[in-house]
Every structure is written in C-alpha cells, then in structure tokens.
C-alpha cells in the first residue's frame, strides 16, 4: 500500500527483488479492498446527455491520472465519487464506503480541489484554510496548526496573512490545494490542478503533487486533459472518453515500445513504401516517416535492403514508443501499426 512502491512501479522491472516485494505489498492490499471501486457507473443528464456510460474500474493507491478530453466525464466522475451528485445507475465505493449512502463519511476522509475558482477574495489564506479545516471536523487548535503547516507545505508561508484577492493564479491554486489537504485526507481528488498556470507554475504544482503522493503518502487522483502532466507525476493512468473507459493501466504500459518501426528518409518516402509493400509488409506513410509493422524480425533486413537499393538518404530507423496522445487520436495510423492500443488490453486494470 506504500505509495512509494506504487509510484515507482514503472522502474521496478530493473530490480527483480524489489519487484517481488512490490507484488507482495500490492497483493496484500488487493486482498483487502481497492481504494476506489466502480461498477457499471452511468450518469445521464436529462435524456440526451450521457456523462458516464457504464464505467467499471478499480483504482489502487498511488498518483492516478484520470485523463480525457474536455467533457469526457472526469469532473462528473469525481463528483459522484464524492457523493455530491447521484449516479443514474451502477455503484461505486471509495475507501470501501458506498457513495450513495456514505457520502458524508467519504467527504470527511477525502480532499477535493475543484477545477473552477472557489476562494473568497476578501479572506486571508490563513483564515480561509483554517475555516475549511473547522468545517472538515478539526478542533480549533488543530485547525490552526494544520493550516500553518499545510500552507507552508504548498509554499505560501510568507503571504498567508494577505487577502486572497491579491494573489496570483499560482498562489490561488496553492490555496485551493491547501484547503483540500488541511484535514489530512486519505485521498485527494484534484480537478485540473494546473489550470491557468504558466509553465513555471505548472512545474511547481506538479512537483507539489508528486511530493504529496510520494512523500506524504496520500493517494491522489488527478483529473486532467493534459497528458504530459500525468506522464511526469503519475504512476497509473485511467483514460476515459465519452464517459467510457478507454484504458486503465500502469503508466509504463502506455508508453512502452510499439510494434511499429519508423523509417525516416529525407526523400523518396513514397518509393520506399511501395517497395516495402511489394515485399509483403504492412506499411503506412506518416509525414516523412514510413511506418512498418514489425510483427516478426523480418522487416529490418528488408528495410535495409530497400533503402540501399533505392539509394535513399536515410535519417533514422527507430522503434516507435506509444505516446499518451495516441490514446485519443482518431487512429491516423491503422490498427495493425499500433497493436498495443487495441481494445484487447483495455480491460479494467488493477495494480501493476
């Protein structure tokens, strides 16, 4: 259950002993209940809009990226998990508490950072965060202590007695994070935490999220439409689109090598593709690159011979890696070229 293990999972393959330990830990946790369990969750607004469509998924502790384009159902899912809105059908548990009946208990154990602005401009960060701590059930003294501590953790110690209205966007995002963290939740739900931040602010926020997940040991779900952010901080990725699960897997599996070989030539790409196709390979042209399916070891020699025979200026030959963007791209590359992303592996995934 250690978040260290979970977040480091992609690198563990290099350390077999650690990997075994991780499996034991993960296995022990799996015997208990998952952090979040979602079964056939559907949410419709009216009769026309379907925000979630039969979503089933287990989420384990760690830093989990919940990615999807705008309107994919991320915010709706977070709100259902908090018990803020009811699902049309299906069920979900958070920390083994049913979202339909134990919403109050869930919200006491979970911190929530909404996407939109949620701060009163005329209060100071200290006043506001400690007020939120009281509402979260902390006694007065504890609320004050935790407020000072959490504001320091998010890097707002100097400015904490100034009114929030005068803060920069980055500082406001930190206050939003602080109020979600002040009652020491077991799970943090962050909805687009880097919204509106400049590159530096974004880096700092991501670093903060990483620290909260790894050092503080708090499970985090980050909803975002920016895949690059998840690549940097996440350990596990859940991709949804149109309210359906696209894929749930450890981050490493999303960016592993594909079965596609990219051959880049300065000119003569079309001729090369023609020749390789004549040799019986599955070929696609993608800009300057010719993409070749490497189901067996055969293509390397054929590519070498083809390039040599045609006398083409070869730039590079490389195995393509999946990029997270591929998940959401409307398949400009055909399915045989990217076998790793077909729906076969899109089953609801568990821990690494």
């Amino acid at each position, binding site marked *: 259950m250690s978040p260290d293990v979970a977040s480091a999972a992609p690198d563990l393959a290099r350390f077999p002993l650690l990997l075994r330990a991780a499996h034991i830990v993960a296995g022990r946790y799996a015997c208990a209940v998952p952090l979040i369990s979602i079964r056939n969750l559907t949410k419709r607004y009216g009769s026309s809009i379907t925000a979630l469509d039969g979503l089933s998924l287990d989420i384990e502790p760690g830093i989990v990226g919940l990615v999807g384009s705008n309107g994919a159902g991320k915010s709706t899912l977070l709100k259902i998990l908090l018990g*803020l809105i009811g699902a049309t059908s299906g069920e979900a548990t958070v920390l083994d508490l049913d979202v339909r009946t134990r919403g*109050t208990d869930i*919200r*006491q154990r979970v911190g929530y950072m909404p996407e*939109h602005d*949620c*701060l009163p401009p005329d209060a100071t960060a200290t006043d506001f965060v400690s*007020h939120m701590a*009281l509402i979260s059930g902390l006694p007065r003294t504890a609320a004050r202590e935790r407020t000072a501590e959490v504001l320091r953790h998010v890097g707002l110690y100097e400015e904490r007695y100034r009114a929030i209205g005068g803060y920069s966007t980055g500082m406001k995002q930190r206050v939003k994070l602080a109020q979600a963290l002040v009652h*020491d939740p077991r799970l943090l739900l962050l909805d687009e935490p880097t919204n509106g931040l400049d590159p530096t602010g974004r880096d700092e926020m991501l670093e903060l999220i990483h620290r909260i997940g790894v050092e503080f040991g708090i499970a985090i779900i980050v909803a975002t439409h920016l895949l690059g952010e998840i690549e940097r901080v996440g350990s596990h990725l859940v991709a949804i689109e149109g309210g359906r699960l696209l894929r749930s897997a450890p981050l490493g599996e999303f960016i592993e090598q594909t079965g596609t070989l990219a051959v880049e030539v300065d000119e003569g790409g079309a001729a090369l593709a023609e020749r390789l196709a004549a040799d019986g390979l599955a070929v696609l042209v993608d800009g300057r690159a010719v993409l070749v399916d490497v189901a067996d070891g055969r293509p390397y020699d054929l590519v070498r011979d083809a390039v040599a025979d045609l006398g083409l200026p070869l730039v590079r030959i490389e195995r393509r890696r999946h990029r997270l963007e591929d998940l959401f791209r409307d398949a400009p590359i055909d399915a045989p070229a990217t076998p790793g992303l077909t729906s076969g592996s899109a089953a609801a995934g568990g821990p690494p």
Partner: protein
Amino acid sequence: MTDPLTAVTPVAGANGPTGSIYDIGYRRYEGTRLGRGHAIRSLFFHSLRSSFGLGRGGRAKIAPIILGILALLPAVAIVAALTLFAQFGGGTEFSDQVPIRYDTYAGTISTIVVLFCAAQAPELFGRDQRFGVLALYFARALRRSDYALARIAGFIAALLILELVPQIILFLGRVLLTTDIPKAIGDDLESVAPVLAQSALAAGLFGGVSMVVSAFTPRRAYAVAGIIALFTIPNVVAGIVVGLGSSTIGTWLTLISPTSILDGTNAFLFDTRLDSDFFFVDLPGIAFVAAAGVGIVGSIAIAVRRFARIAT
C-alpha cells in the same frame, strides 16, 4: 521550488549544542475528528462573525459598524439623558415619559435593521455563490441543508444581537440610575418576555426574508435591491388597495409586509394599541404573530430548498 521543511534545520535545543531537530516533513493528523455537528457549529459562528464583517477585510466592517452604532444610538442617548436628569435630582417620572422604551425600541430601529439586512445578508449567501465557495462546503461533511440552516441561523443570531444589545443598555441605564434598584428591576422584569419575543420575531423575519432573497442571486446589487423592495413595497401595495376603497382586503394584505407584521406583533406582545394612523389597527394581534411565524418558517424552507438544488 525550495521548501523550508525539506531542509535540515539544526537547532540548539535542550539536548545541548549537539542536539538538532530534523524536520520530518509532512505530519499526519492523528487527533480527534469532530463530525457534522462541529461543522455546523463552526459555520454558524463563522456566519455570525461575518455578519459584522469580522474575519474579512477592513472595508467589510464599515457598514456593520455604522449600522450597529446607529442601532445603539437611541439607547445611549436616552441613558445619557436619564443620567443628566438624575444628576439634577429628577425622579423616575421622566423615564416613563421618554418616547424610547422597550415597547418602542424594535420599531425605532427597524429601518436600521432592514438596512443591516440589505447590506449584510448578501455577503453571506451571495459571496459563497459568487466565488464558488459552495463547492468546497458541499465537498465536506456538511449536508446542503446544514449549510443553509447554519448560515441563516448565524445571520438571525447577528440580528438578535443588533436588537437586544441596545435594549440591554437601556435596561442597565434605567435600573442603575434609580435610587431603588431592586424595585426598578422588578418593574422592568415584566418587559423581558415581550422584549425577547419581539426581538426574536424581528430577527427571524427580517433575517429569514433577506437570506432567502440573497440565496437566489449571487449578484450583490440584485440582492440588496430585492431585500429593500420586499421590506417596502408590500406596505405601499396594501396602502394603495386601502386607498382604492377595499379596506378589508387592504388591511389583511398588510400581512404580507414584514414591517407591518412586526408592528402588529409588537403591539400584541406589549399589549399596546397601534397608533390609529395604521390602517391595519383592527386586525387581531394573534394574526400578526401567526404571519410572522409563517414568514420565518416559510423563508427558511425556501432557502433550504434552493440550496438543495443549486448546482455547484
């Protein structure tokens, strides 16, 4: 990003110069966690404080301070006059003749209370909607109805303070400036129940109505206008209907006007006659109390319903 907590901070402590405190970073909270009741109480007191501008910026305090002083002014002026009169050897006859008494105080300051409502009620409900803070409240142990009730109760408590503190000053002045203090206390004791009842009805009705208006708009200006309108227009409408000749309908129509209702309950509770220039003078006293009760319960119910449905 540098963080002071991740740095090792050597401190010469009780262990001598070799002892040092290593900051261990994030600390879990293992203490007590109080539940929903604590959250409701905290929000109640937060609303009470916010009503007077406490815990907010300096500008937020201007309106409540001015209106608070205005509400106190009649009581302070009377006590000052009584003091002067007592110094010149006067007896109690003066204090019985002054126009500002327990049975007139609520009416005297009702305009100030209305202005206080218009200025402060939108600050409680409107701000939370305007700045999206509602989402944070609802993401905690509070239920939506808890939120609405705690906010309204906090505001009504603030109004109660606004109503009662001047009358307590009035009481202290009247009692302490007489020669026979026990007798003076005895004389005033019979006013305690009506004072409390009238103040509670006024705070409840003014507070409930102004909070329900501000629950429906995040825009401060709309809420202020709406509150003032609700406290003035019904009276005018009733007056027009009476002027048009339908005096019975017009008279009963006054029961939609919060200020008229409270004039009526005041006369009923203190057992005084309404001035004959009130056209609703002939309504039974209990009708006013019933109308006040309906107004309070109704407005709170509407506000709770509003927050049960509001989207965050």
